[in-house]
């Protein structure tokens, strides 16, 4: 009985602590400005989509959102295209130098990525791709790719080689066996890691703000304009940033533990 009361009490405490800021920013982004600036009014009389609409449509927030989506898409595509085969080879083959390669990929994760931002501008200037979304995607790939290699290594090592070998006995090529047998089995885990990769890119602000001036991603745009715009736009921006990330993490909650375990180790 006491245990039950304790659990309910702590649960409520946890829910209030973690959800209040999120609920309040969504509420604030829906509050009409006259209610927001009225000190006597805590809860709004009515809700409005005005601020979200203005930020998104009139102030071109959709451009920055689209930029963010494009950057994330390119970075994920690039990371999986190179990282997935690399992860496969690292689980299924034994060869000299394997551990050294794996360890160096692991080491890049403890590396403060902000350090590469400044020289990248000069490299991009030389390549003629400065201030483009592609250039930001390339920079994001440098920290998403190691994550993808490590995560696919761990997902694939959880799938027995024997299935693949059985397929090869029945006449599939190695590539065919991977595509027809291993890949479908790995797909849910890979989808979850793609979502995590998306969140990494969607939230990254330092590198994006240094690399771009015109084609800014959403967080970079917010970082550079938020504090000079009216409060309700700040909250609309915060809401737009938060909602996709929260929705995505809801769908991957089953993989949460293993994902963060690997992404951080």
């Amino acid at each position, binding site marked *: 009985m006491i245990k039950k009361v304790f659990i309910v009490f702590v649960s409520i405490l946890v829910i209030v602590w973690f959800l209040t800021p999120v609920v309040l920013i969504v509420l604030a982004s829906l509050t009409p400005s006259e209610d927001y600036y009225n000190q006597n009014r*805590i809860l709004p009389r009515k809700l409005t989509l005005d601020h979200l609409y203005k930020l998104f449509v009139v102030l071109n927030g959709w451009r920055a959102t689209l930029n963010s989506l494009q950057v994330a898409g390119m970075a994920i595509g690039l990371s999986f295209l190179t990282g997935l085969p690399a992860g496969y080879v690292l689980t299924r083959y034994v060869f000299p130098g394997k551990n050294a390669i794996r360890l160096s990929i692991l080491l890049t994760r403890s590396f403060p990525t902000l350090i590469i931002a*400044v020289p990248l501008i000069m490299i991009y200037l030389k390549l003629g791709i400065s201030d483009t979304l592609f250039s930001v995607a390339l920079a994001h790939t440098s920290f998403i790719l190691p994550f993808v290699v490590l995560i696919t290594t761990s997902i694939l090592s959880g799938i027995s080689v024997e299935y693949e070998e059985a397929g090869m006995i029945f006449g599939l090529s190695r590539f065919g066996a991977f595509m027809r047998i291993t890949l479908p089995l790995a797909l849910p885990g890979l989808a979850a890691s793609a979502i995590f990769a998306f969140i990494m890119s969607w939230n990254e602000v330092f590198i994006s703000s240094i690399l771009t001036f015109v084609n800014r991603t959403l967080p970079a745009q917010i970082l550079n304009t938020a504090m000079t715009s009216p409060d309700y736009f700040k909250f609309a921006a915060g809401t737009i940033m938060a909602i996709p990330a929260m929705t995505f993490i*809801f769908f991957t909650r089953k993989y949460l533990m293993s994902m963060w375990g690997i992404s951080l180790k």
Partner: protein
Amino acid sequence: MTYRKDAFPYLILLPTIVYLIAFLGYPLIQTFILAFTSESGTFGNFQRLMDTGDFWKALKNTILITGIIVPLQLVLAIALALFVNMRFKGYSLILYIISIPLALSDVSAALMSYNIFAPTGYLNKILLKLGVLDRPLYFFGYMFQNREFWIIVLTEVWRATPLVFVIILAGLQSINKEYLEAADVFGFSNWQKLRKIILPLLKPSIMSALLIRTLFAFQIFGVVWLLAGRDILILAGEAYYWHNNVNDPHMSSAYAIVIASVSLAISWFYISILRSKELEGGQK
């Protein structure tokens, strides 16, 4: 044919390795070159950096923030993980709610915090309504640096505790239940179980959580930049400032090098502690 087979794994790994060399390794070297070239010799930038009070303030603040939030987050995360690990009905919902901040960027966390503590924010409105205050309490602005500092600490604790929590919980779940059952047989209290069995077995998870959190805390940027701007100087913020506002990539790189070297020192420190603990404990 055999040659092909032998080269195959390397060929597949080649794009990844080339990519990481081109986009991590090469820029890293460039950062060093930038940081160590100036009109006044190799160490000119660092000399300049140390001569300004800003650098020392930024270093002090970064260390202070890290030193305050990391232990706080660890204690909170262990408590939360022990709680969720009780596996009561509906614990998975609690698990999801705790993990929400994991998906949020520092930018949105900062805006959430601002929403609560702004002059017309919810905290002020509620306190005014309750009659606790008769005019709004200000938390932001150059004159209120102390308050800004604590708001930043609070925001970071809110935002990043779940990161530590997930690692600790994973560690908790990997503890063999038989140890705890054996402890029950010997009549251990819950507190004894925690002290003598759970915490010692959790040590590797705690160490990796501490390492990761310390590294990230040292790179803190978005929350401070949005909530306090340059009222509260921090290392990453100065790197950003010197680049975007002063247009001096050399000084910016010098700051980046400082952050990277301290990160390296932190990693080395934790890993050597972990090593020596392992040696003490014999096989494990």
